[in-house]
């Protein structure tokens, strides 16, 4: 269906008022929302949405009940999620078989199905309403809250919640005033470095030459961070609107959304959004009849972490190897095709319409002195409530991990939280009262990064974590500059040696020396920050390194070369572990104590996991070298 483009701002505002009114008038009607982001889909949300659609059609409920398949709501742990409005009832772990019951009981008879309600893992308390669930209650979801309100494939849905209103507003103002507003809001880049967005825009606006470009950096490469994916999948128009406002303010006529190829659903939804925005006249020539021309396209990444760095990203958009170059000149002066270019991250762009809609003053009320607004974190790893968490800057780590995250599973002990991805560091339990903002994290030796928070417990070995990240950066180093190419390799090799129990006392000082050199002499941010995971773990967990080196012991019982598995006399000879062992290392007769052939054992821990808890005959230990008399 082809729609007519809005010819003027008045034309758009009239239509938007109609959509707004329509939504208001149906506000009290029962609606069913299924969260269909990638994580929901991975757990079967697609089947559930389909079941609802079929039943609604069969029961001829389409006029009585609204149905919406949205992007991710952020509470990934409890997927697949279904929300029933207007009450705001939240159902977790829903299966296709629950659909009939939800329609009969909850939608028709207004009764809550206790089985599907969220329950605390520690005290069993149940929370039928979405807004009361502890995971959501402490958040302030300026950006993410929109995800549940819109079908990402419907521009009308976005307009009906006020979408593109900020663009219309900006287009009626002087571009310099728009920049002043973003500056006054204090918005800082959400991609990691935290540079003042308004200032960056000003550089690009003031740069001579053109055409100018704006780029959305959606090459979200930090493992464990996926807030950008969620925003692009669930509310792509908010990002496009931010880019349009920025392009108008900076005088740019072309834009690129650079999305990593690992996010197929995001690429798809942004593509649909682009076409819709073009059709309605938000993108293209003479936007909303104001004389502002802007065109936008998508570039797919091709699997290179370094392309998250802005100069490497530009090289890749130009069809070259994604290698960074020295700065200055900064992209604001010489970016895409040598022209003034502004690059912001997805979440940064998504903040822009909020600032223009509510004004800088209201935006700046949230957050700390130097870090304004909210930030989305992905709280993952060894944590009960995995998901996306949007909180005011300045919230303490303790609130995030304990109150929102619900603590550590299986009664294990919290060890550290890793922030900032491969550029960041590990923050130990002693710093849980740290206020999370750009400065707070930097003081602790870590960084904001794109907002990944990976929680680690007593079974996570910090030497292994450091090795993991250094292997990662080593593999992703583009190879252009020597310190990063060779330095990270040396560090990864030393760490591998320590992990194997072959480390020497000099290794620690060697690591520190290499780290300093790489930090100071690398070409781009990838190298500058690559040693951080090692430096922070050395700072806070030196004892673990020393245990590996001096005692040939892995305190977390994690490093395979330093641990062993043994079957004790508790063994009842049930035989479960024998076929479970991939290498056939376990032998033993029925009802006789089994034994593990240490030569064949890979230390994968499968026997440890399959041994029935009431028997618990498999033990894990370290050091590997047990003294034999």
């Amino acid at each position, binding site marked *: 269906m082809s729609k007519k483009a809005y010819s003027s701002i008045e034309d758009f505002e009239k239509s938007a008022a109609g959509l707004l009114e329509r939504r208001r008038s149906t506000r009290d009607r029962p609606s069913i929302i299924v969260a269909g982001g990638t994580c929901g889909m*991975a757990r079967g949300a697609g089947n559930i949405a389909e079941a609802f659609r079929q039943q609604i059609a069969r029961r001829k409920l389409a006029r009585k009940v609204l149905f919406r398949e949205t992007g991710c709501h952020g509470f990934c742990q409890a997927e697949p999620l279904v929300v029933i409005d207007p009450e705001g009832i939240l159902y977790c772990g829903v299966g296709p078989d629950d659909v009939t019951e939800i329609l009969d009981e909850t939608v028709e008879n207004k009764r809550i199905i206790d089985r599907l309600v969220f329950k605390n893992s520690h005290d069993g308390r149940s929370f039928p309403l979405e807004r009361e669930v502890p995971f959501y209650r402490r958040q302030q979801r300026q950006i993410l809250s929109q995800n549940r309100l819109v079908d990402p494939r419907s521009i009308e849905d976005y307009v009906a919640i006020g979408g593109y209103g900020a663009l219309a507003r900006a287009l009626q103002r002087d571009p310099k005033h728009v920049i002043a507003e973003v500056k006054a809001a204090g918005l800082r880049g959400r991609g990691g470095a935290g540079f003042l967005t308004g200032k960056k825009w000003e550089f690009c606006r003031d740069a001579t030459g053109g055409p100018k470009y704006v780029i959305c950096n959606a090459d979200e*490469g930090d493992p464990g961070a996926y807030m950008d994916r969620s925003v692009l999948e669930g509310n792509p128009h908010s990002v496009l609107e931010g880019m349009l406002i920025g392009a108008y303010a900076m005088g740019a006529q072309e834009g690129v959304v650079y999305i990593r190829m690992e996010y197929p659903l995001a690429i798809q939804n942004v593509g649909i959004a682009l076409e819709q925005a073009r059709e309605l006249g938000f993108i293209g020539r003479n936007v909303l009849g104001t004389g502002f021309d802007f065109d936008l396209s998508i570039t797919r990444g091709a699997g290179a972490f370094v392309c998250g760095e802005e100069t490497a990203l530009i090289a890749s958009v130009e069809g070259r190897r994604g290698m960074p170059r020295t700065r200055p000149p900064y992209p604001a002066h010489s970016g895409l095709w040598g022209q003034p270019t502004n690059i912001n991250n997805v979440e940064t762009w998504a903040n822009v319409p909020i600032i223009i809609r509510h004004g800088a003053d209201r935006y700046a009320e949230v957050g700390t002195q130097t870090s304004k607004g909210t930030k989305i974190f992905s709280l993952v790893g060894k944590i009960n409530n995995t998901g996306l968490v949007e909180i005011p800057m300045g919230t303490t780590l303790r609130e995030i991990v304990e109150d929102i995250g619900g603590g550590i599973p299986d009664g294990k002990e919290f060890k550290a939280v890793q922030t900032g991805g491969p550029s960041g560091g590990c923050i130990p339990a002693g710093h849980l009262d740290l206020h999370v903002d750009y400065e707070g994290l930097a003081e602790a030796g870590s960084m904001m990064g794109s907002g990944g928070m990976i929680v680690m417990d007593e079974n996570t070995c910090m030497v292994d974590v450091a090795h993991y990240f250094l292997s990662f950066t080593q593999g992703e180093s583009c190879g252009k500059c020597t310190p990063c190419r060779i330095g990270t390799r040396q560090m990864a090799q030393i760490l591998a040696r320590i992990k194997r129990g072959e480390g020497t006392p000099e290794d620690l000082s060697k690591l520190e020396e290499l780290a300093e050199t790489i930090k100071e002499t690398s070409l781009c941010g990838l190298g500058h920050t690559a040693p951080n995971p090692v430096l922070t773990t050395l700072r806070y967990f030196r004892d673990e390194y020393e245990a590996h080196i001096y005692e040939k012991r892995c305190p977390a019982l994690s490093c395979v070369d330093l641990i062993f598995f043994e079957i004790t006399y508790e063994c009842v000879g049930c035989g479960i572990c024998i076929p479970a062992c991939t290498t056939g290392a376990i032998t033993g007769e029925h009802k006789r104590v089994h034994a593990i052939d240490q030569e064949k054992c890979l230390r994968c821990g499968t026997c440890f996991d399959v041994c029935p808890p009431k028997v618990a005959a498999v033990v894990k230990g370290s050091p590997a070298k047990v003294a034999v008399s």
Partner: protein
Amino acid sequence: MNQTQQVITRITSKYGKNRSALISVLQDVHAAYNYLPEGSLDIVSAQLAVPLSTVYGVATFFKAFSFAPRGRHVATLCTGTACHVRGASTLLVEAETRLGISPGETTADQRFTLETVNCLGCCAVGPLLVLDGKYHGQMTAQRIAGVLEGG
């Protein structure tokens, strides 16, 4: 014009013959064949008027491109941080042992290609194994064999 040339002509005409389309063109060629066949780089180079060395440079730089035919089934293990702390490295050893190949390799019978990925952002269901685009969460060493049997 041979078949490969025809396929590539269709792809390059979609993007226009400029060098900035190079990565997109290679991605589409890769999607069409599931790898970059021998000779395809020459054709791309000629059609986009980009030196072969540049095409080769780009094709070897990005992880998305493979020069060897991939298996009928692609098993991708997520090795993101969240999956790692939940034991992805053990699962990788398990998958390698079961299939007898390392990441990036294909079994001799062309049945499986094993790959790793930095992060798919499905950390809540980690560790994660993806078989032919289907996500299998909460993966364990015991379950890998069963999932691979399905492929």
